């Protein structure tokens, strides 16, 4: 694609990618007073961020109401308000609070943000780890799209006998393999902090591992065959099409029909893609998610284009020798 040969476009892509990384870590995660009380009482999390409006304040502390309608009294800790002026009733604050059962009030640890433009929701059991949803899940989605593109190119190669489609199929599948590996690594790190272990042979982990093996076999097949280039390309194209048949089953169906640690397993509704067609994810998080999918897909297209051109140059060089 010609667009990737423009320095201005690539520069813009780099900038937008940097903005995506910045926003993924910069937008505060905030829950409700109920979240904070529950997490503190269960001993899961000592300090929890809460997004709430300042209703009133007196010498004992301040009264807030969060977005879900829960009210909470926040006892002021000396110096914790910093430079923030207490008399701005109606201000929306993201507060870091700790629940105190004895006083049924919240100790203020820190004011994280004053009148934030956007916040991410506090997902029970994930908290700050929920940010990985902007890396791990989009990478899996891009991997699926890459394998789909690889298969379309393989079909086009078999129909039109144009070797350029074969090169594109190879590059797209390589990109799909890379993004699957990245999704596996980011998911594994996520699992370590959410479930306590890097790998637990969860159905989705197992299916993604099998998928990696299937596509590793595709590249091995290409490099090990000692047939003519034409026959090698045709066999690889047929294998690529057959390999893709397993992708929807391994990525979408199997993890949904079996009991799984992942959301959406065992008949429960997946948060983003599910049969009812309704997403159960906060709008801000969902918008950032689709933005990440779009951005990573652009990066994938650049990688595919680049690898296709490298393969073309390699073949020309081999022909010249």
């Amino acid at each position, binding site marked *: 694609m010609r667009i990737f040969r423009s320095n201005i476009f690539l520069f813009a892509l780099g900038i937008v990618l940097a903005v995506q*990384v910045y926003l993924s870590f910069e937008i505060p995660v905030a829950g409700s007073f109920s979240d904070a009380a529950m997490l503190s009482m269960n001993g899961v999390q000592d300090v929890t961020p809460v997004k709430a409006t300042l209703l009133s304040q007196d010498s004992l502390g301040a009264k807030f109401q969060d977005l879900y309608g829960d009210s909470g009294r926040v006892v002021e800790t000396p110096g914790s308000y910093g430079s923030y002026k207490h008399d701005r009733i109606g201000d929306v604050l993201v507060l870091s609070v700790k629940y105190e059962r004895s006083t049924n009030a919240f100790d203020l640890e820190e004011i994280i943000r004053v009148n934030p433009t956007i916040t991410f929701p506090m997902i029970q059991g994930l908290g700050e780890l929920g940010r990985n949803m902007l890396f791990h899940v989009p990478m899996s989605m891009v991997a699926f799209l890459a394998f789909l593109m690889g298969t379309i190119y393989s079909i086009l190669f078999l129909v039109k006998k144009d070797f350029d489609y074969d090169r594109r199929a190879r590059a797209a599948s390589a990109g799909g393999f890379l993004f699957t590996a990245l999704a596996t690594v980011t998911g594994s790190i996520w699992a370590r902090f959410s479930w306590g272990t890097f790998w637990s042979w969860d159905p989705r982990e197992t299916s993604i591992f099998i998928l990696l093996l299937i596509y590793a076999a595709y590249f091995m097949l290409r490099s090990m065959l000692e047939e003519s280039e034409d026959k090698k390309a045709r066999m690889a194209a047929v294998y690529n099409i057959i390999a893709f048949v397993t992708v929807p089953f391994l990525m979408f169906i199997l993890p949904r029909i079996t009991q799984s640690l992942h959301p959406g397993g065992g008949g429960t509704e997946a948060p983003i893609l599910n049969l009812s067609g309704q997403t159960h994810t906060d709008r801000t998080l969902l918008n950032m998610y689709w933005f990440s999918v779009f951005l990573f897909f652009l990066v994938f297209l650049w990688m595919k284009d680049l690898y296709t051109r490298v393969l073309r140059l390699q073949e020309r060089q081999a022909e010249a020798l």
Partner: protein
Amino acid sequence: MDFLQHNALYVVGIISAVIWLGIFSFMFGVERRVRKLEREK
């Protein structure tokens, strides 16, 4: 250690940015070399 615990989010963010920067720089380097070779051909 205390610094890392209090600023974990920023540390992870910076690591993530550095990894992307590395990938991007590498690809841009390859892009330039490929363009040069394509012009030579």
